C-alpha cells in the first residue's frame, strides 16, 4: 500500500542530496559561473530543509528564514556576477585555474 504522507526524512534526504551535488559541482567545475551556480544549488538545498522543518514543527519562522536566505542569495548573485565581469575584463578568461594572481 502506498502511504499518502511523506516522511520528514525524505525531504531531508532530498535536501542533503542537493547540497552534496552543490559541493561536488563547486569542487569539479572549472568555469567560475558554473561554480557560482553550484553555490546557488547548495542554498536551495538548505531552503528545502528549512521549509520541511517549518512544516514538521508547525513553526512559520522557518519560512521567514527562507526569505532571508533568498535575499542574501540575491545580493550575493548581484555582487558575485559583477566580480565575475570585472575578472573577465582584466584577465580575458573564466577558468579559475588561470585566475591565480591577486594583482596583475
Amino acid at each position, binding site marked *: 500500500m502506498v502511504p499518502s504522507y511523506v516522511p520528514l526524512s525524505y525531504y531531508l534526504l532530498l535536501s542533503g542530496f542537493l547540497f552534496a551535488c552543490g559541493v561536488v559541482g563547486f569542487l569539479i567545475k572549472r568555469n567560475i559561473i558554473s561554480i557560482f551556480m553550484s553555490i546557488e544549488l547548495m542554498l536551495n538545498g538548505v531552503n528545502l530543509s528549512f521549509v520541511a522543518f517549518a512544516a514538521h514543527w508547525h513553526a512559520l519562522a522557518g519560512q521567514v528564514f527562507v526569505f532571508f536566505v533568498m535575499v542574501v542569495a540575491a*545580493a550575493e548573485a548581484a555582487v558575485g556576477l559583477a566580480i565575475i565581469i570585472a575578472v573577465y575584463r582584466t584577465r580575458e578568461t573564466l577558468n579559475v585555474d588561470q585566475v591565480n594572481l591577486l594583482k596583475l
Partner: protein
Amino acid sequence: MHLILFLAFGAVCVGGAINLLAQRHPINSALSLIAVMAALAGEYLLLGAEFVAAVQVIVYAGAIMVLFVFVIMLLNAGEEEHTMGSRVALLLGVPGMLTGSVLMAWVVLRHSGTESVPIGALPGHPTDIAQLLFHDFLLPFEVTSVLILIAIMGAVVLANTPEASAGKAD
C-alpha cells in the same frame, strides 16, 4: 498521492542537479538549475508553503537565474576544459562526497524516524508570514534592506568600466 507527487518533483530535482554537474557548457547548467528550482517550488507547495513557492519561482527561477543567463551570454562563456586540478578534485571529491552523503542519509534515517509531514497543516498564508516578518523579525528585515543597498552599490562600482569612471571624473 502526495508521496507520488513528492517522488515526481524529487526525480526532477535529482535529475536536474546531476545534469548540472554533467554538462560542460554553463548555459546548459543554468537551464537545469532553473528546472531544479521550479521542481523545488512544487515541493514547497506539497509542504503547504504556497507563498514561499511563489517567491521561489519569481525571485529565484525568475530574477536570479535571468541574471546568470545574462552574464553567461554577455561574457560569451564557452565549454570549460578539464585541467589537472579538476581531475584531482573529481578523483578525490566525488568519493569523499559519496561517503559523506551516505553517512548523512544513515543519520537522518536512523534518528529522525518516519513521522509524516502533514500536508496543508501549516498554511503559509501571506498574512501570517507578514505578521511574523514585520513584527518578530523586523530588525533582521531592516538589516537586509541595508544589505541589499550595499549590494546594489557594490555591483554598480564593480561592473563599472575604469574608462567610463575616468571619463566622468574629467
